[in-house]
């Protein structure tokens, strides 16, 4: 046992990553953009070196996970796998159903960008399936070689840590699978098992800890938040001479806005936040942010842990109750919207204390779209005549949730908003948008600098499609409704020779096009 323990000791896995931080820069080549997206040949172990930093005890323990690799890790891991198989029908059915047809093999952006065969969705699943077969099926117990079943060894765990952190849980593979196998479910289970034996991921777990403690991913306390919002009010008033407010902890407001904390600081996110505030202002609907629940993001989904996801979400319910609001509106954030739309009612419902006339939760795009439809906003698209805009469908909105009252609203509503605010709009290639959209390359808890090589390479399919519309239609900007997409593209587009400021918020376009002079 000690031999096993030594091989995958937390410190060792970590050393590899931490070491590279001190080694100047991680060396890698950005894939070249071609005329079309081609499927790479299999290049074994091309990304075997890619591993995010491992969580330290201080990141693990507040989430209810052991601080370091436990001694009987093999036993604990198998017990956890059995537990998850009994709790999640998805995992149980998906472990049995795959026929290795290969339909998913050329669908993952990380495979397309790296050629590492373990980044093919089926191969990523097989990292767990081969262990499942060995311990949980007759075929694997009796004929392991025949069915490709293996023992849960330290090599397997190392592979899990590496390749379950090369999946952004974007669900693109699930669109094409004849059995609807969603690799995200398996990645989540893999990460939960890893965290349970003491090998969690630093980036996600540290952030979840901050939300539990302070209320947002940045660890931004109330005074700093209040100060920031005050600054924004001054900035906007200076800019358009309208006293647009950014209320915080205002009891009795109609709407609680919950938005990713990146919206408070990061570019281009903050221009989206300004856009929301302008919409609220012009519509004359009272709203507030909460310092207790100052985060829409919920990284609990990334690590696949129900209890942590629920605990993060519960702050929002509590804030809504404390502030006595009637509605909850969620800002532009992909995975946050999936958790809010698809899971909140289950995790922290029922929302019987809110106004039943509105959907709970409501997306800011739905909110603005309704106002546009009812004539509640005055908008002049000429304000954005300097731009030719395309739209990046974010994975979690496209394949894990919905906007509006009919299926597919997640595609039409954001485009409707952009067209209302902007005269020049063009879509990217049909096999790269809507349900076929490619992940930005930074989703699913991978938006960390220790995975920069993976992030750049994973952005290849989107960069390829964007390059095409730049050349064919002179596209100048790509709008998105996800904080992770925005951060990721700002960082990786320059690697492909595109400007970091190409990526903008949908509500920046809206905010810039709203006409205020008649009000004041």
């Amino acid at each position, binding site marked *: 046992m000690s031999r096993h323990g030594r091989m995958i000791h937390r410190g060792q896995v970590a050393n590899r990553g931490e070491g590279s931080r001190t080694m100047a820069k991680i060396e890698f080549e950005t894939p070249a953009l071609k005329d079309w997206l081609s*499927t790479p*040949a*299999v290049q074994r172990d091309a990304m075997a070196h890619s591993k995010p930093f491992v969580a330290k005890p201080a990141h693990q323990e507040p989430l209810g996970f052991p601080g370091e690799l436990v001694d009987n890790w093999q036993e604990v891991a198998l017990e956890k796998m059995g537990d998850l*198989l*009994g*709790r*999640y*029908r*998805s995992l*149980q*059915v*998906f472990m*049995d*159903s*795959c*026929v*290795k*047809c*290969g*339909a*998913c093999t050329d669908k993952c952006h990380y495979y397309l960008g790296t050629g590492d*065969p373990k980044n*093919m969705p*089926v191969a990523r699943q*097989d990292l767990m399936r081969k262990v499942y077969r060995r311990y949980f099926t007759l*075929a694997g117990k009796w*004929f392991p070689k*025949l*069915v*490709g079943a293996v023992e849960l060894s330290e090599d397997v765990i190392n592979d899990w840590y590496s390749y379950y952190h090369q999946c952004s849980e974007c*669900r693109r593979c*699930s*669109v*094409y*699978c*004849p*059995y*609807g*196998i*969603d690799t995200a479910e398996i990645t989540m289970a893999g990460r939960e098992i890893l965290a349970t034996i003491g090998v969690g991921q630093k980036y996600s777990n540290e952030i979840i800890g901050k939300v539990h403690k302070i209320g947002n991913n940045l660890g931004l306390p109330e005074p700093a938040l209040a100060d920031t919002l005050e600054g924004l009010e001054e900035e906007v008033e200076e800019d358009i001479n309208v006293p647009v407010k950014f209320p915080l902890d205002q009891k009795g407001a109609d709407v609680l806005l919950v938005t990713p904390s990146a919206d408070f600081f990061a570019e281009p996110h903050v221009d989206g936040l300004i856009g929301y505030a302008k919409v609220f202002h012009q519509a004359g609907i009272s709203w507030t942010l909460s310092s207790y629940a100052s985060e829409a993001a919920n990284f609990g989904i990334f690590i696949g842990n*129900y209890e942590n996801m*629920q605990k993060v979400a*519960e702050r929002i319910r509590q804030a809504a109750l*404390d502030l006595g609001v009637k509605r909850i509106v969620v800002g532009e954030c992909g995975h946050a919207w999936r958790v809010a*739309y*698809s*899971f909140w*009612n*289950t*995790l*922290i419902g029922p929302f019987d204390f809110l106004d039943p006339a509105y*959907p709970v939760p409501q997306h800011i795009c739905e909110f603005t779209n309704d106002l546009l439809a009812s004539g509640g906003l005055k908008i002049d698209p000429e304000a954005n005549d300097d731009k030719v805009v395309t739209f990046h469908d974010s994975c979690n909105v496209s*394949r*894990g*949730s*919905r906007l509006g009252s009919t*299926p597919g609203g*997640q*595609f039409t509503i954001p485009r409707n908003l952009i067209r209302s605010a902007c005269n020049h709009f063009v879509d990217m290639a049909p096999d790269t948008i809507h*349900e076929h959209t490619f992940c930005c390359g930074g989703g699913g808890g991978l938006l960390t600098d220790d995975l920069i090589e993976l992030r750049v390479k994973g952005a290849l399919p989107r960069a390829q499609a964007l390059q095409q519309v730049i050349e064919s239609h002179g596209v100048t900007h790509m709008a998105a409704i996800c904080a992770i997409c925005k951060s990721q593209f700002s960082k990786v587009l320059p690697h492909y020779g595109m400007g970091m400021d190409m990526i903008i918020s949908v509500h920046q376009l809206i905010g810039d096009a709203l006409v205020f002079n008649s009000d004041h």
Partner: protein
Amino acid sequence: MLLGSIFAILFYLATVIFLVGLGERILRYSRTPAPLVIPTTPAPTTRTGVCARIFREVVFFESLFKGSKWSWLFGWLFHFGMLVALMRHLRYFTEPVWSWVILIQWAGVYAGIAMFLGLAGLWLRRLMVDRIRYISAPSDHLMLALLLAIAGSGLAMKYGQHTDIVSVKAFALGLVRFDWQPLPSDGLLILHLSFVLVLMLIFPFSKLLHAPGVFFSPTRNMRDTPREHRHVAPWANDPPRSSSE
């Protein structure tokens, strides 16, 4: 008669293992909760819509069509060839033969050929495409070999060395009526039946479980109505709530 008795016992055994094994899996799938609403969206919002989605998935292989045209073509040929060929075989188990089974006899032969070609195409793909070769375990190749052997031995009896189908029918009816009859000791027939026995035996323990699995896949069989309906798993608890605030 010895051969007939051996195969009769084997068929009963295989049938029991097939049914019990499959039943155990179906029970397990249906008893395991799906704790979160996870349809791959856009997804239907009604039960009728969900049924239609699963129907399209099972009958037209809708998702596979989106994913890979070659796999779809070969896979569809194989599955529906096999279905029609199987229906054609009902004539061995019914007396008098049902009229619709008589009607499809001609189609059943072409179906056997389609099944063979589809399987051959799938195997070729598995061997030729580097990505699919990488994900293939020995059992994935053997499964195709087994199905090809079943289709091949069947077609060989149709077009090559005929077997005594009157006796085969007597044997098959004997199985159904629990009145065992002798089986012709014909090499091709013995092979054909043995391969079918193996297929029945491994069904509940192999990737053939995709057959029940597709009906239980939460990304396909859930409605997109999470805002309207709470969906709480039996094991899920409310979060710890402080009453003071």
